[in-house]
């Protein structure tokens, strides 16, 4: 693999062996996200205890970046509250903007994904799982 490859080891590891893959049988919240550009789709199921996400699964039909992002997100959001992860998702979005340079410490572990932001065509792949997460958070609020 060449040094300029966007496929870093960590991402590849997540892509090949995604964490929390699948569907929860009795989720408290469920959301789908769809990438109309390539037809990829993802379903996120969450189990809550109070406000806290205590289990989650993602079912992904997508590329390696999409799968890796969903896997990293799942690790990241467990045992956090919905409002906390919503805030994280917003920070992640902001960090993917072209003109954002600093990455807040809170999302340092997402840096391998954020490093891919020059590949603008892959932003949607990275965001698919997070879009579903935001959808879940919105459902919970209403």
């Amino acid at each position, binding site marked *: *693999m*060449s040094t*300029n*490859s*966007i*496929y870093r080891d960590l991402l*590849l590891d997540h*892509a*090949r062996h995604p964490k929390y893959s699948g569907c929860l049988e009795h989720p408290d919240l469920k959301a789908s996200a769809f990438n109309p*550009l*390539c*037809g*990829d*789709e993802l379903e996120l199921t969450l189990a809550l205890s109070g406000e806290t996400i205590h289990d989650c699964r993602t079912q992904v*039909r*997508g*590329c*390696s*970046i*999409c799968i890796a992002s969903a896997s990293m997100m799942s690790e990241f959001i467990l045992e956090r509250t919905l409002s906390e992860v919503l805030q994280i998702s917003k920070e992640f979005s902001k960090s993917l903007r072209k003109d954002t340079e600093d990455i807040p410490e809170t999302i340092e572990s997402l840096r391998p994904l954020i490093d891919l932001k020059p*590949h603008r065509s*892959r932003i949607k*792949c990275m965001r698919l799982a997070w879009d579903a997460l935001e959808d879940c958070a919105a459902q919970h609020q209403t």
Partner: protein
Amino acid sequence: MQHHPLASKVRDDFPILKREINDFPLAYLDNAATTQKPNCVIDSLLDFYSTHNSNVSRGVYTLAEEATEIYEEGRESIAKFIGATDSGNIIFTRGTTESINLVASAWAQHNLKTGDRIIVTEMEHHSNLVPWQMAAQASGAELVYWPITPEAGSTSVGLLELEELEELLTDSVKLLAVTAVSNVLGTVNPIAKIVEMAHERGIPVLVDAAQAVARMPIDVSGLDCDFLAFSGHKVYGPTGIGVLYAKKERLDEMQPFQGGGGMIRQVGRQSSTWADSPQKFEAGTPPVAEVSGLAAALEYVSDVGISEIQKHEKELTAHALNRFAEFSDLELYGPQDTCDRTGVLSFNLRNVHPHDVAQVLDESGIAVRAGHHCTQILHERLGVAASVRMSFGIYNEVSEIDRLFSSLDRARDIFLD
């Protein structure tokens, strides 16, 4: 082996091909999406804006007359290129999509009623599908799909069978919309025969020539089609310019598409009357520079020679088909014979997502498309969500195809354990 000399002859005409991408020479294999532009097209845009720029048909001063002449001469040369006898049958649009929407809105919605049918095929681009869904919903008509041949184990993969069409051509069919060349399978459809069969039953035919226009001769008079649509940017011309050819009888049945300047005869306080065709369908300031660029592109293509382009593309396609046959982990969609197809080849590398394949190829300077290529119905039919597509232009070389196949090894190394 002696290769067809076309690519080496024309490559210098395309400045973008000198670019390096990720330290590799650019191998541009996404010509079904858009083609690169030769110097003569770039120069014509530059020349228009630096020398002749003004609005058309609205001034008596020298520049306005020059711009009007460029615009109307462009219409003449485009009519000639596609074999239309009268430039009055040529309507300028923004592209194939707008051309088809124009027919759906200005013709179909006024000529369809509940119970009518529109035949489309399973291989249509969304631009030759969604406008018909909208027209059908507005008029109470319905879409009927002409299926493609099954992909399992036959050489007649991804073709349209005329026997199937025979069954579908019932009295309630009021339009048949079909692509001349599939933007995914590369299939070349027997348009002349299709038009003949439809016309025997008095059914108008719209031909989507977006992929065909840069790959084969187009003769609307010979085909006798009712409508034909294409985009300038897929035939080495600028973006933002498209063409709709419509037969006189159909033009007479059409209501205006958009209202505004240029399309009126007289405007009253409550209602207006319309200009004659084609101005009736060209509201607003038209894309004059783009028309001049498209005319330059079509002149360039004519100078190169459509038959030379066909020979060259056939050689590239045959080479690619041979290379596909070497790899059991590559699944190629569409006909396997160069007689039935052209240089648009979609495939999947087993167990690797098309996005990932395309990204790895880009790291070697190879530009291909990954996704559903605006054909969700077709991909559903093929049983895959997406595919990788390589598609050839006049400047592509056999060596670029070989580079693609070599680079697929990198994708295998990265993604397959």
